[in-house]
């Protein structure tokens, strides 16, 4: 299942409200589709990215840097997608 590699990237929160409900939800939805692990770390605090609850406890505001880590098949893909979310400020256009 695993290619043996841990894929890491640093991401920065750049939306105004920080990691509130909606962004966390989007991250968790993405992570849950991935078979391996996806973890976001802020200093000492590690959050299972599949858990909305865990992500909320990161309490990441605008400007916070987080370490993103993924393992398992296509770990690089999931890392890429999560980074994209951060990059565009979770700006999935609100449904009409």
């Amino acid at each position, binding site marked *: 299942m695993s290619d043996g590699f841990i894929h890491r990237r640093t991401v920065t929160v750049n939306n105004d409200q920080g990691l*509130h409900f909606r962004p966390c*939800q989007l991250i968790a939805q993405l992570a849950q589709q991935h078979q391996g692990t996806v973890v976001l770390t802020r200093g000492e605090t590690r959050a299972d990215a599949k*858990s909305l*609850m*865990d992500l*909320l406890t990161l309490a990441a505001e605008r400007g916070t840097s987080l370490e993103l880590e993924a393992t398992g098949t296509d770990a690089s893909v999931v890392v890429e997608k999560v980074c994209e979310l951060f990059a565009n400020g979770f700006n999935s256009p*609100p449904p009409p």
Partner: protein
Amino acid sequence: MMQIKRGIAVSPGVAIGQAMVLGTENFRIPNRYVSENGVEFELSRFQSALDAVCEEIAVNEKLVRGMLGDQYAAIFSAHLMLVKDPHLVEQIETRVRQNQSPEFAVTQVLGQYAKKLQNLGGHYLAERSDDIFDLEKRILRHLLGERREELSHLTAPVLVLAHNLSTSETAKLNREFVLGFATEVGGHTSHTAILAGAMEIPAVVGIGKLLADVSGSDTVIIDGSHGIVIINPDEDTLIKYRDSDERYRSHTKRLISLSTLPCETKDGVAIEMLGNIEFPGEAESCKEKGAVGIGLYRTEFLYLESNREPTEEDHYQAYCQVLKAFPNQPVVIRTLDLGADKMPGNLRSIYAEDVNPALSVRSIRLSLQHLQLFKTQLRAALRAAEFGDLRIMFPLISTLLEFRQAKMVLSDVVEDLEEQGIQFRRDVPLGMMVEVPSAAIMAEEFAQEVSFFSLGTNDLIQYTLAVDRADQAVANLYRSGDPSILRLIRNVVNAARKHNIPVSVCGQMSSDPVFLPLLIGMGIRQFSVTPHAIPELKEVIRNLTISRAEIIAARAETLEVARDVENYLGGELKRLCPDLMQLD
């Protein structure tokens, strides 16, 4: 480890068996631990509670989407995700596998998250903790609600332990499987206690902290004669109780053998013992206990039991069933005696929740504000009266005007029935409960307008002493022997005698053998009591002479405080019937 809890004894007898613990929404932790072999069952209970919550949220989401649009509905999809959060579910399930109850585990895990969010600082996250509490509440409601549901589908005998049982829940208890019950709140005269007595289920109420110390499969003893609950009794205690259970049964048997003997004093004065009932089905067993009629049929259980407003036919059938058991003896129908807060269906929502229900729209006041409801009941009573000695009694009358108003409604109903050519009895005696101090004080005037008085001591004491009978904090101030109560009773008895109308006592006070000699000595010759108390009361009566009773009453009426009155009466009872107390 064995634990002994004390509460208020409200229904005698001993029950030994397995505990079934019920919680409520406000009471968060019904039991902390589950037994090893209960784990799988508890896990599946948790899973179905989660499923139910998901369904609930999905319904809300759809509703909000329709009303406010997608953006608002997104809040719910986040909630939905929270419920399905794998990490969360896993943590709770792990705790259940370690024998924590799902209710407890949910509270713990969600509580931790909520705390974390609150501590992280930031307004937004702190507010999110409310979402988590909301979620917790939803899950608990399903976990606990389901439990309550189980109560009506029992298949094995249990002892029910609860924070509180509502009157309607008590009414629905399956007598075949519920051997006894115990509650943390409640007092002597709460409806639940009265009902337990009527159903002859051993019960203890007002125990205080209980549920946190007991879990689902524990063995429990409920001693309803002494107000004791024992959790996980040791072998010696079990043996002792099994033994006393047997003695209680044989004592009851001996008393029942009295039921064929006349109910009269040693010097041959007849005392009428009628029964208080809640359900028509009780009439037969009431008769077996020696009752010579029904002195108080609490018709509100018709409303509580079905959870909807009963139809005229429902009333009619119920009354006819009672009259069938007592075709030639008095059957007193008390019209609806409920607070608006306890009414099923639409009525409840009409009244604000924060008013004091004891002083608000209840009983006759409710009937007079909802004439259709009142007339339905009166029609049924007048029609059923054709088949026996039915009498109608209005509860909670506080002024003459109120009684006259109620009487006028009855005249309207008579007119309607006449016009419609429906058969009914015209000369049904019309009486009132004397249970508001104002009515007791004005007894002289009332006696000229009513056919009979019935002293409702429960409410009379509550209103006179300003003590809520169910409130633990003041329950010790609720004293039947208070001189003020005796004085009001004296006033009512004198007025009834002067105007030659019958007066009976139907409150809990009359079921207590301690007060019986006093009340007889004051001139009361008719009682309406919990059926199971009749044999015991009869024994007291058969040991008593009227002259002795009069001496006791005269002495008691000179005493100044409740404690002295009750001590004196207790001593006198012991002298009259030394055998009666041997159960201690």
